[in-house]
């Protein structure tokens, strides 16, 4: 009968379908971790060899995919290869920003991390569950090379987990020296001097302050770069803020940071199309002198050097001024750090690599491909003489010890919505007070999600 013949066929088809499905599943599973799988395989073979010949080891390194990071990482890798010819470092890249944060967290969570990885210091590093995922480097001899002020930003419960991978960065105001010279202006030491300068620039028909809120992160600079002034007035703010004893809205010094941003908008100092202007467009406005000031991180320096090489000498830099002329100092951003994955199978080699990164030799290697945007955090390392003038503008603050790390390096808390809130304050949707209060709520949410004590 027809029916009888059909049954075995049906069973057969089913079996084929199911096996196909299972095979597909297996395929995806191994595909999910191409790097990890390949790396592990290599490690195994290398490990086998080590016993006999002690040679040829490969370790992996993960960095973000910006041109500068990749150049830096390749320079380290090449120089390190010359020093330790038996260790090859394989480079992997990831996106930057929040997407990159997610990738790093996911790879750590799934046990698929590279042996060494470069990642932010400060609050973002705190979110990586360091005790579980990162190798404790507190007692490594190379930590002696690292300047002490950096260590707290890569520490968790008193243990140090990383070494700096590049130079410091400062947050402050880029300004166009030509505009300043044309209008006979002086570098401001107080906020009111800055406002007065802006009035004159505006009267001259130029944009006093460049706003590039299309790239929302750039809107935070006025608030974040004001932290030197906050801590100059309230030295315990970071501690109290972390312990939920102080808020932005109720601490006048902290609220002042938001008010400064609001004032820039109230007085019409920023370009009208700031919500549609990007970071790149902002740098262009600054270099071409259409805008006089740009509150930004000094890491923008290489981009200006690359895109506007003939204009770089016209660009200067000053710290965001406070209200007191005697307390003028610079808010600095600590560089990212190199970390070792705790479950790495190549811990010894990874340590050797980080020891190289944290040496004067390492900084020389890097400065050849990426001009420092501030001093290095390695003892005895020097900033080369050929850095752009605006980096030299920053050095006096370091020499006179008038610097403070940004809040995100001294407190594990940084609310994720700050950039949206500063867009609102900077474009007049919210007042400074409302913005500060909204940020306090955002911070509360983050602290609760991190499970911090006292929140």
């Amino acid at each position: 009968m027809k029916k009888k013949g059909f049954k075995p066929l049906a069973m057969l088809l089913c079996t084929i379908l199911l096996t196909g499905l299972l095979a597909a599943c297996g395929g995806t599973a191994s595909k999910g971790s191409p790097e990890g799988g390949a790396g592990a395989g290599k490690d195994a073979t290398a490990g086998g060899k080590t016993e006999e010949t002690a040679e040829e080891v490969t370790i992996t390194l993960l960095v973000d995919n910006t041109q500068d990071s990749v150049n830096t990482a390749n320079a380290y890798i090449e120089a390190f290869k010359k020093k330790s010819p038996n260790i090859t470092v394989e480079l992997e890249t990831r996106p930057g920003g929040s997407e990159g944060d997610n990738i790093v967290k996911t790879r750590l969570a799934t046990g698929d991390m590279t042996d060494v990885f470069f990642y932010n210091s400060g609050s973002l590093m705190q979110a990586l569950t360091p005790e579980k995922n990162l190798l404790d480097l507190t007692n490594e001899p190379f930590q002696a090379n690292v300047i002490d002020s950096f260590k707290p930003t890569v520490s968790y419960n008193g243990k140090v987990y990383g070494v700096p991978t590049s130079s410091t960065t400062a947050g402050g105001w880029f300004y166009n020296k030509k505009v300043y010279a044309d209008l006979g202006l002086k570098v401001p030491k107080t906020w009111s001097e800055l406002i007065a300068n802006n009035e004159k620039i505006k009267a001259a028909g130029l944009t006093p302050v460049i706003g590039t809120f299309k790239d929302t992160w750039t809107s935070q600079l006025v608030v974040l770069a004001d932290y030197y002034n906050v801590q100059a007035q309230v030295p315990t703010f970071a501690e109290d803020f972390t312990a939920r004893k102080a808020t932005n809205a109720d601490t006048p010094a902290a609220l002042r940071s938001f008010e400064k941003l609001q004032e820039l908008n109230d007085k019409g100092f920023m370009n009208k199309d700031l919500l549609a202007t990007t970071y790149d467009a902002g740098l262009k406005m600054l270099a071409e002198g259409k805008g006089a000031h740009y509150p930004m991180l000094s890491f923008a320096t290489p981009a200006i050097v690359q895109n506007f090489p003939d204009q770089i000498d016209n660009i200067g830099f000053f710290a965001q001024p406070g209200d007191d002329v005697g307390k003028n100092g610079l808010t600095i951003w600590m560089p990212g750090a190199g970390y070792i994955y705790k479950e790495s199978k190549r811990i010894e080699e990874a340590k050797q690599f980080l020891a190289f990164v944290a040496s004067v030799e390492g900084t020389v290697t890097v400065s050849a491909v990426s001009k420092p945007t501030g001093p290095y955090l390695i003892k005895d390392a020097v900033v080369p003489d050929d850095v752009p003038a605006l980096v030299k503008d920053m050095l006096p603050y370091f020499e006179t010890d008038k610097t403070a790390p940004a809040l995100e390096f001294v407190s594990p808390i940084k609310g994720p919505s700050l950039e949206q809130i500063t867009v609102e304050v900077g474009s007049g949707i919210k007042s400074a007070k409302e913005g500060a209060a909204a940020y306090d709520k955002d911070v509360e949410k983050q602290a609760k999600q991190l499970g911090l004590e006292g929140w």
Partner: protein
Amino acid sequence: MNPIFKRTYSYLFLVPAAIIYFVIFILPTILSFFFSLTRWTLTEWEFIGLENFVTFFNEQSLSIGFKNTLIYAVVTSALKVVLGLLLGVLLTSKIRTKDYLRSVIFFPTLVSTIAVGIAFSMMMHPSQGIINTSLAAIGISGPDWLGDTRLALLSVALVDVWKGVGFATVIYIAGILSIPGEYYEALQIDGGNAWHKFWNIIVPLSRPATNSVIILAFIGGLRSFDLIWTMTKGGPGFTTDLIASIIYKQYQGGFYGLATAGNVILFLIVSALAFPLYTYLNRREVDL
């Protein structure tokens, strides 16, 4: 043998599809209900009851998110219905370039949403974008499409309509073409004009098409994310945040439990709005 295997088509045929459906749909859905009650770091979780939901409802931009999502869904689905119907009528009438126009109308549907978003956000640039420069050429100073807090959401909704109207039109074309010719003959005998044809025949009898368009566009609008994210990222500030973009930002912040709670809320809202709408629309459907 077991009766299950006696049927012409064994239930075993369902197994592959069922496994896929269970593993990548049912299981994550159930798990998400669980993880929405926890503080979750992808590897470790801690049960915290309804706290995530409380936090989510306290989220400052959430009330805006609800409102925006609803406005967005209503505006896009309404415009898609109206424009889709009109274009459907136009493209089923006897015009010469019908086939060409059909492809032109449908073309935006084929383009990647991200590409559309990027292209339009450049065209909507307040001073350099092509829209405002053309407006300036005829003496109108155009608004800041994506920067004006009152306009931004509508600008994005319009782009969504531009992109999605082709699909609605195709559904309408199918609906209108399936209306039997007898109705038109009856109309001719009764001496009705073009308006009667449109209002008394096409509109009521393409009701199944209207229902499909409304349901698809409305649900699509409620969970819309990609276009708003490429064009405004929920900004300026939080003014164009939709529920989906709020959820995304929680994931970005690493608040996995909280974000999952947001997804559960979105799931409940979509079902709470879509199911009654669906039954209501179906009840009013007319049999041909």
